């Protein structure tokens, strides 16, 4: 089962057959619902941006090159950006051969159009957080038709800025979209804030009419390899090649249908009856892998660029002091049988998370040290950590017998005879997660740690695990898990400023460490290529969260004669590289 974590190179070789239709199953409960490339909060799901990129070429995007993830490739509009002025200025050169489907070339003006819209309406843009794009751009300069230059508010780590900021950039058809009202004159309205707001409002209003995506001429002006053929309000999307496409990656297929499903089970049933060419199966079915292969499918795990973890609430009114003790976190991490869970519960489709940087696939962001698990499953080690800090077993529960702050004592704020019992808020609705939590509960109990698992739907878990101060009501939760589908998907660069820096928006457990903050700062702002390694190594050991097995984005099932499928860890897809081979052409 080990190979499922590796990115399996797409079988290639056999001669492509032009044409054909592929039906791809969308993830459970995923209904594509936004086409306008500036998505408002709530519409930023991966499947939306993946589809948008098929119609509107990204300027930069995560592209897998060997074992590295890089921002440019044959499908991106931008060429390698150039940093200057002590990394305070970045110049973006654009490809020259790309034109809109109405014949107009794609130019720097189209990027400016995007920037104006985003700047005027950042509150309505899902990717916006305070201080980042567009706040970090002091000045946007159009150098020429095919070059733009950004003047930044300070120096940035070029790798981070390209990977996590420039990838947000889009070229939008200004010549077609820059009108304040329907039927209004096309002009440079975006250049004033009020104008940009009006233009944005109009485009958003069109995007709010899902039923018209297939027919609205607005969305027919595209520069990507595909265009919309139909967009049903159930979320089923059909795309066909864009005949006016001037780029290099021309589709081989005639048509691709993206099919939404409510549940993995219903998808699976359809999958079995041959209703999809490219779908997925529940991890549990991996045991039946051979049967699928014999029916002419291949199975491959689509590893996500993500980490999974259980959040510790360092401010918990119930067990905050315990959470704050590194040795307790270490003991608990020793009790997480990540390999066992991955192999048995996830049937091999999940991979251990070893630190804040994804360990699979192995990329340039991972140092050799980060690939080692510092806290392998070891009940005795865990017990030893506890006993050496003054905990002893009483009726199967560890209780603190040596309170105090000494190195052999329980630690600050832990009272004498305090038992080690914790509650965990966990996401419901997934057998794997439920099982994982049972395994965790069971193994924690072996060291006397009593875990109460309360299951809630994802939304409730998210709603309940708010970052809180110990004085707030509702701050009695100890641990929280919402990683059935991976806890955190990274953009290209796996920086953790939103997760682990003090007071960050997704730092639900209020982890706070000056050292970590310093390291995160370095990842964002210094041009030191090792900053990421230092950060990763430090947090792997410090355990700001309990690392848990990271499930695959999906366990894909792909028709044997469908080739050219690359499963990008950032979960985008590029059907332009897919093609059929003659039936029977061996893999």
């Amino acid at each position, binding site marked *: 089962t080990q190979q499922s974590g590796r990115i399996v190179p797409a079988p290639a070789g056999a001669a492509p057959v032009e044409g054909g239709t592929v039906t791809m199953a969308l993830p459970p409960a995923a209904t594509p619902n936004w086409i306008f490339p500036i998505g408002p909060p709530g519409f930023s799901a991966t499947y939306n941006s993946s589809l948008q990129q098929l119609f509107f070429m990204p300027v930069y995007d995560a592209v897998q090159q060997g074992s590295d993830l890089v921002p440019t490739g044959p499908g991106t509009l931008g060429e390698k950006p150039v940093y200057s002025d002590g990394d305070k200025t970045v110049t973006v050169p654009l490809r020259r051969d790309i034109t809109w489907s109405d014949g107009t070339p794609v130019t720097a003006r189209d990027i400016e159009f995007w920037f104006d819209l985003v700047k005027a309406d950042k509150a309505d843009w899902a990717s916006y957080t305070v201080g980042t794009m567009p706040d970090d751009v002091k000045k946007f300069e159009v150098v020429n038709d095919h070059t733009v230059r950004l003047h930044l508010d300070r120096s940035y780590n070029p790798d981070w800025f390209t990977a996590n900021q420039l990838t947000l950039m889009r070229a939008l058809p200004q010549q077609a979209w820059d009108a304040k009202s329907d039927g209004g004159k096309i002009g440079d309205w975006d250049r004033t804030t009020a104008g940009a707001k009006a233009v944005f409002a109009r485009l958003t209003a069109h995007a709010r009419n899902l039923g018209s995506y297939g027919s609205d001429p607005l969305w027919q002006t595209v520069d990507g390899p595909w265009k919309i053929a139909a967009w049903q309000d159930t979320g089923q999307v059909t795309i066909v090649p864009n005949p006016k496409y001037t780029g290099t990656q021309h589709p081989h297929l005639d048509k691709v249908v993206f099919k939404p499903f409510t549940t993995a089970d219903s998808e699976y049933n359809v999958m*079995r009856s041959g209703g999809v060419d490219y779908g997925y*199966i529940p991890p549990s*079915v991996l045991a039946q892998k051979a049967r699928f292969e014999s029916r002419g499918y291949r199975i491959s795990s689509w590893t996500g660029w993500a980490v999974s973890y259980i959040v510790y609430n360092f401010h918990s009114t119930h067990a905050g002091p315990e959470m704050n003790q590194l040795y307790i976190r270490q003991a608990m991490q020793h009790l997480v*049988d990540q390999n066992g869970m991955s192999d048995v519960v996830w049937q091999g489709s999940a991979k251990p998370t070893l630190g804040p940087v994804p360990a699979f696939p192995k990329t340039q962001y991972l140092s050799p040290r980060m690939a080692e698990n510092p806290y392998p499953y070891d009940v005795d080690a865990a017990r030893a950590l506890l006993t050496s800090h003054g905990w002893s077993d009483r009726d199967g529960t560890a209780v603190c017998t040596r309170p105090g702050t000494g190195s052999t004592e329980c630690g600050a704020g832990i009272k004498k005879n305090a038992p080690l019992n914790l509650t965990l808020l966990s996401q419901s609705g997934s*057998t794997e997660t439920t099982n994982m*939590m049972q395994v965790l509960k069971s193994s924690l109990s072996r060291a006397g740690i009593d875990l109460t698992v309360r299951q809630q*739907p994802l939304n409730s878990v998210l709603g309940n695990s708010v970052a809180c101060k110990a004085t707030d009501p509702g701050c009695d939760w100890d641990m929280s898990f919402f990683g059935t589908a991976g806890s955190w998907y990274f953009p290209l660069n796996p920086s953790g400023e939103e997760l682990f820096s003090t007071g960050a928006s997704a730092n639900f457990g209020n982890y706070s460490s000056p050292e970590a903050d310093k390291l995160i700062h370095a990842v964002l702002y210094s041009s030191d290529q090792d900053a990421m390694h230092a950060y990763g190594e430090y947090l792997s050991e410090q355990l700001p969260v309990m690392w848990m097995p990271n499930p695959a984005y999906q366990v894909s099932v792909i028709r044997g004669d469908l080739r050219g499928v690359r499963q990008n860890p950032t979960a985008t897809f590029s059907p332009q590289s897919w093609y059929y081979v003659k039936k029977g052409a061996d893999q």
Partner: protein
Amino acid sequence: MSVISPAVAPGHEEAAQATPSLARRTVQVFTRNKLALAGVVVLALLLLFCYVGPLVHPTDQVHTDLSQANLAPGSAGHLLGTTDLGYDLVGRLMVAGQSSLEVGLAAGVLATVFGTVWGAVSGYFGGWVDAAMMRVTDAALAIPAMFLLVVVSAIITPSKTVLILIIAAVAWLSPARLVRGEALSLRDREYVQAMRMMGGGGARAVFRHIVPNAIGTVIVNATFQVADAILYVSYLAFLGLSIPPPATDWGSMLSSGITYTQNGYWWLIFPAGIAIVLVVGAFNFIGDGLRDAFEVRLQKK
């Protein structure tokens, strides 16, 4: 000549004709209903299995054992195999059955008690009290139970008590309506009028006359309520709302077993599924038998 001296008065010779006591006759009629009898037997067996079984066949239903996961039936020491976490399946069925039965019974009884009082008060007092109480019932009925459960399952962290309350909250409606109907007809009965004529009040009417006389309906309904409650437990599990592990119930076993449908791990699906069908069926059979028994009594009148 007065012929009605107590000595001659009929009564003694009539004792021969007097019918056996209500309870006895109910039992008689009930036992003649073969399905009801089968229901009792099945239920008794299931109870034995769930409550005495663990004594005979002790298993660890707390600690997982991944090395023993998904063993097929017949593996050493595991008659029905093991679950995906290595629990012995037979032992698991036993503890799961305990939860299912306890939650089902408690919810069914709670719903029946509440519904009965609600319905009896509404029906007996009539007028605007009835109108108000019934509109509330109507409104709750107009939201399909499953919809409510879906919403609730998106809100609530389950525990046994919570499950009982949730199920009772959707299940009290049918006894309420039923008992209200009974109360409406009972309150016009002459014996209730007679009691009012003697100066008796509403509370006496409801608790001494209406509820006891609707008791047949109530008991029969309660049996069906318990059956429905056990079904609801399984639906809640299907909707992702089940007792926190490592505790479990048949519904949760079934719905998590569904994950393994395709692997041919039938022992994760069918034993639990069949247990649900059996226990719900058994309660239904019993309810039907009781209804027969009570109806016969009514006919005799």
